[in-house]
């Protein structure tokens, strides 16, 4: 187990290393990074000062080492627009994104799990077909378009919900639904296939042979085990939601990290953009590591196999 954890930890570190290297190289290959890192409207003297401060005349690997050492110390530079350290800015926005992600997750599970179970219980029936269509729609309608349509319906025509901003519980509903919509389809698909697998297993057959009512077999025996992979996926997706909500947060002016990323681009605030990508990658690598290790801990075949 220890060996397995160390190996996975090594992979994660390599991933982060490659990631930081690509980000670093992309910024430098595609042109003069000073044009990105300098504030819009800076004077010639400012640009020269920044160049020597960044040490762009030094060999590229020296530049990389100094870039990495500041990143590892949590120093992503200062935002041009907000004039505060980028990390501080990011951390102040993270709780909002987390809230949005949690509500979106609740929506996606509330829609995805029951419809997935229904589709599995009535496999190849009407509800299965309806579920397939729903999943296709969920995967095909862009989240931000769903958001725009909801604004049109609930804010403009019905006037029930605020169209943008944050502050009250009402504000979170629409962005969360728009974000959760896509994931609901994925959760439905997985619930269905996981449920089908469990329903075909020996212990479910036994429960039926015992004469238990079908509802009890499904709700008490099958459901619990079918839920395990779905909840694992949900855990990964929660982190993903925080990191892919850029467009939805922009549509609803929700003050999360996605919106921060967008502002970074809109205001030509490059330190914010760069930090967002690095932190987003770090977060996802970390979650994948945790999931891998948890799986190995639960299932010895994984850590011993191969």
């Amino acid at each position, binding site marked *: 187990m220890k060996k397995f954890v160390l190996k996975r930890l090594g992979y994660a570190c390599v991933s982060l290393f490659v*990631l930081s290297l690509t980000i670093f190289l992309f910024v430098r290959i*595609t042109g003069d990074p000073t044009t990105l890192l300098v504030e819009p409207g800076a004077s010639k003297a400012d640009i020269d000062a920044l160049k020597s401060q960044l040490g762009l005349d030094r060999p590229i690997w020296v530049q990389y080492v100094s870039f990495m050492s500041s990143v590892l110390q949590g120093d992503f530079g200062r935002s041009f627009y907000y004039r505060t350290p980028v990390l501080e800015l990011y951390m102040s926005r993270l709780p909002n994104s987390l809230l949005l992600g949690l509500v979106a997750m609740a929506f996606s599970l509330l829609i995805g799990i029951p419809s997935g179970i229904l589709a599995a219980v009535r496999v190849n029936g009407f509800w299965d077909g309806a579920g397939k269509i729903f999943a296709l729609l969920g995967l095909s309608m*862009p989240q931000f378009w769903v958001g725009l*349509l909801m604004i049109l319906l609930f804010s*403009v025509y019905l006037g029930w919900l605020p169209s943008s901003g944050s502050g009250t519980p009402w504000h979170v509903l629409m962005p969360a639904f728009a974000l959760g919509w896509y994931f609901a389809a994925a959760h439905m698909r997985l619930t269905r296939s996981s449920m089908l697998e469990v329903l075909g297993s020996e212990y479910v057959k036994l429960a039926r042979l015992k004469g238990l009512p079908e509802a009890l077999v499904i709700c008490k025996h099958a459901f619990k085990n079918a839920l395990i992979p779905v909840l694992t996926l949900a855990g990964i997706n929660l982190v993903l939601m925080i990191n892919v909500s850029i467009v939805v947060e922009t549509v609803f002016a929700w003050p999360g990290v996605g919106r921060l990323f967008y502002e970074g681009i809109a205001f030509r605030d*490059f330190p914010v953009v760069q930090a967002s990508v690095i932190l987003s990658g770090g977060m996802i690598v970390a979650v994948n590591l945790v999931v891998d290790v948890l799986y190995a801990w639960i299932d010895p075949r994984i850590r011993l196999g191969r």
Partner: protein
Amino acid sequence: MTTRVATLTLPWRFVAFRTHGLPLLPIAIIVVMALMAIFAELIAPYNPEIGILGERFKPPAWVAGGSDKYLLGTDHLGRDVLSRLLFGARVSLVVGFTAVIFAGVIGTLLGIMSGYLGGWVDQVIMRVTDAWLAIPGLTWAIFLAAIVGPSAMNIVIILGAVYWTRYARVVRGEVLSLRERDFVRLAVVAGCSKWSIMKKHILPNVVNSSIVLATLMLGVVVVVEASLSFLGVGVPPPQPAWGLMLADGKKGLMAGYWWLTVFPGTCIALLVLSANMLGDSLRVKLDPQLRQL
């Protein structure tokens, strides 16, 4: 089975939604959109980039206040929505298809090399793939677009650079099992060089998976292109792209100008839906191994 389907009359095929095992409806939608894109100049009633400011925010023809001159209404600059949608199809399809093919070629080649050559080549390619997959495609695309600046050409390169990893991963897995098959071993014994084995024996066997993946990726790429344009880092205005139209439409959303949001979004959703449906059935037809993907 195939003969029975082939003898069905055309109307019935439409009802059955299938011909030779392929769904007819999504193919029809993609073909119609492609025709719209190709003949946009001939069909479009107006110039998509120039509007008449006096004719701003005209609703579609069938709504009160709309006129027959503008079938689907006009936007905030008085540009004809129908004309913009037609030319927008060109942007979405050209960007979508080229990006998918570009990513597919890079990913397939690197996947084959990674799987067949093994060793340090495999290590390097797979570690880069792992690292790149750790960041959501949209985030990568926005980051790169922010660096290189917006243009349709740049978007294609960016999407290719972001999405080759998905192909590389799948293709490598296939190559690993192909490598152990008898026909490849025989080719080695017969003295074929590594390159000719990869070209003549491995490539033809992984092309199917790449095509399936490309069809499924088309939907993803179209959505990401639309998102980039929506955020203002994609296709630059005044070019008509569907994502850009949605961004413009948002300005009139609170005033209730619904047609600026509903029509472009419907086009995107239809194209993505078709690509997904086509990809799903191709997956089942061409490549049973990919079914669980």
